[in-house]
């Protein structure tokens, strides 16, 4: 089937089997491998992307469901001049990762968390980021990164 979606501002028209998930379309067809395939069952959050500005799991979304939608992946966050998104910079500043596998999902989820207004307190951040697992357990640094980026995002 034909599926047209905008990914990081660019329109993509794809001919897909209906079984293809948004995650596989992004990684295997469009070549954006930032969103990761961890569990592929909606349990780990590594595949988190924004669809129309809301964080969702790309592994449990059919590509066909993204028809006509705006998809943002971690590759779409930095400015064209290379300046990082405040959340990306905050993850670096706070060393909010070790192996890095969950990081794109963490960053996309963290942006959603702030934009939803669920990053008012550290406890809130922990609760509303609970869908993103980090096997390296960088959680304290992730919370610190979100706290740093939050006011910068409001200003931006």
């Amino acid at each position, binding site marked *: 089937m034909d599926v047209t979606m905008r990914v990081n501002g660019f329109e993509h028209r794809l001919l897909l089997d209906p079984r293809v998930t948004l995650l596989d379309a992004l990684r295997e067809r469009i070549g954006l491998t930032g969103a990761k395939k961890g569990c592929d069952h909606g349990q780990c959050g590594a595949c988190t992307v924004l669809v129309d500005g809301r964080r969702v799991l790309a592994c449990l979304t059919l590509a*066909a469901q993204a028809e006509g939608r705006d998809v943002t992946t971690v590759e779409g966050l930095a400015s064209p001049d290379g300046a990082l998104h405040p959340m990306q910079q905050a993850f670096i500043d706070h060393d909010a990762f070790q192996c890095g596998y969950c990081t794109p999902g963490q960053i996309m989820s963290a942006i959603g968390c702030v934009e939803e207004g669920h990053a008012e307190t550290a406890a809130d951040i922990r609760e509303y980021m609970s869908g993103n697992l980090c096997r390296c357990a960088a959680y304290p640094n992730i919370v610190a990164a979100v706290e740093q980026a939050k006011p910068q995002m409001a200003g931006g």
Partner: protein
Amino acid sequence: MRPFAFERAPDAGAALRLASQASSGGTPARAPAQFLAGGTTMLDLMKLDVMRPERLVDINALAGPHGAIEADGKGLRLGALARMSAVADHPAVKREWPVVAQSLALAASAQLRNMASIGGNVLQRTRCAYFRDTSWIACNKRDPGSGCAALEGHNRLHAVLGTSEKCIASYPGDFAQALIALDATVELAGPKGSRSIPFAELHRLPGDTPEVETALRPDELITAFAVPALPWARRSLYLKVRDRESYAFAAASAAVALDMDGGRVREARIALGGVAAVPWRAREAEAALAGQELTEASAQRAAEAAFRGARTHGHNDFKPELGRRTLVRALLQAGRMEA
């Protein structure tokens, strides 16, 4: 994943037509045509080969007419395509029906709550590992007559109320407990028109036919939930006890709403999650509390009544006690609320 046809329904009429055009057969919960909203359960179970639809009918375009959240003096009306997060964050729902908002906010993860519709949420399937893993032959819910591997297997998270010899799977959801406690109704659209039934009649006890999970016909669609106005539902909450602090299914949960006259309970509404085969209204516990002073002792008596019929299967022997403690804590906490 097995091949399927993907269809987009522009409206409810088209959704029902597209569903009825698929071949019939299969158990009701495994009918050849399935509606797709958030897809968070459906795609998961299709990847596991538990669900094998020939046709998916995408109903997300119905969110316009069937996705609104309306709260006023007459009550709360929730369109079935409203997302879990939208209801959980709605200011009037949080204020007037806190148990509804909390049951959704404490479920799943933020991403899943952004995806999942509330109509799909109440239909989410059990997390019984033997149901989800098709390498196990025995699962009466998946393949009627094949047996129940959980009876002698790992049944730590299985139900202790409402089970049968055919199935001890627990109902995994949270929101449904809030709906059943508040006497909500569910609105259904079908090829023969619309009908409305008490939410309490939506889910079926497993009995001899655990594959029949609801009163929904295969070509029927949930369009809305209606929660009656209940001023004292401001004094309500959802308490969920889990193996980890967040993003887990309930080991035991309680949805409670209290109508208080000073320290005395005029009326209590109690539903239990994580411990039962279906969303579980604990009417015996409600009756035990009615007219009583709310104390730890009276809450304990209510909790004893709620679990009097519990049947455990080894690994889940802890559940009645955990369920009682959960309910006692929920009742005392609700009693202390300002409402």
